[in-house]
């Protein structure tokens, strides 16, 4: 019968105690290194077909190439179908929405974009309305301020030469009162 005092048991226990911290350390270290290695690997992206809504979200920001004033998302011509197909292809390749728009702008020019880009010659189309609005607002503000700051100017009224202002005013006032039957 084994007891804890048995030498073999003691030896076994000693071995267990002595192995535990180091025996765990090595596997833990290996696990950590493996995790770090796997984390450093590039994550493979799976190609997925974009949804109808995703394609239309991009197409709605573009013009039909062959129509006038028609949004690419609403256009039903063969050309528009082809362009939407190209949008879908680019999205499936991992292009972001902005990258798709940049691609079409570089490929076909700014005319294909619903909104003119805020750079290059079309920048003025964005800046000018803001400038005009600010200029108009400043002008309005100045006008209104001027109205509020209007200073009274003292003026004297005289109907007959040689008569003082007070004398004429009193006579005029008396006449008014008579006419109004106040006296």
């Amino acid at each position, binding site marked *: 019968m084994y007891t804890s005092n048995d030498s073999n048991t003691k030896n076994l226990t000693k071995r267990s105690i002595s192995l535990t911290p180091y025996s765990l350390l090595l596997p833990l270290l290996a696990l950590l290194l493996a995790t770090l290695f796997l984390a450093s690997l590039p994550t493979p992206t799976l190609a997925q077909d974009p949804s109808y809504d995703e394609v239309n979200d991009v197409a709605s920001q573009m013009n039909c190439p062959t129509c006038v004033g028609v949004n690419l998302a609403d256009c039903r011509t063969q050309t528009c179908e082809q362009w939407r197909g190209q949008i879908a292809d680019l999205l499936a390749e991992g292009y972001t929405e902005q990258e798709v728009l940049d691609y079409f702008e570089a490929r076909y020019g700014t005319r294909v974009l619903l909104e003119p880009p805020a750079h290059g010659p079309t920048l*003025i189309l964005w800046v000018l309305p803001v400038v005009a609005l600010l*200029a108009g607002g400043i*002008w309005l503000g100045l006008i209104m301020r*001027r109205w509020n700051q*209007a200073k*009274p*100017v003292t*003026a*004297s*009224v005289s109907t007959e030469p040689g008569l003082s202002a007070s004398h004429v005013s009193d006579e005029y006032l008396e006449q008014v009162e008579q006419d109004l039957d106040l006296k």
Partner: protein
Amino acid sequence: MEQAIPQRKPSSNKKYLWIIGIVVLLGWVAVMVVNMNSVESTAMQGRAAPDFTMPLFDQFNEDEVQLSELRGQVVVINFWASWCVECYKEAELLEQTWQAYQDQDVVFLGVDYLDTDKEALAYMAKYGITYPSGPDMGSRISNSYGITGVPETFFIDKDGNIAHVQIGPIEQQQLYSLLNKLVAQPAQGM
């Protein structure tokens, strides 16, 4: 008795109206400057052909072609698109003519307008187009030539001037007549 009559100083609203008017005028001028190069294609006849560099589709040996390097040859620039129904009518004629006039220093260039590459290549395969063709990147070439649609064909003489602008599909007789005349003309600038 003195009366107080509120009075305003002589209005300086005119000054602000001038400022706003100048801002609006500057804006109008800016818009005109942006559009000042928009000359229609028919008005290009007789003018020097705007130079351009066009990338070519993959099946061609060269990566790109530059118009100015073709000076001394007759150049036919055809704007087309796979979705252009009228273009179908002249596609085979243009290819046949290119084959016939190649050795007479005549170069055909196909400029693909507002088209997707997949459909453009299918169009070229369908009609057997072998003359140098490529996409009009950024629509810069079509803008500089002021095209109003497709097909449009520009005939450039040996001196680099636009001798004729053809709106719509071209007929064989007219095409051959034009080319014969341009080929016969000696280059004046050389």
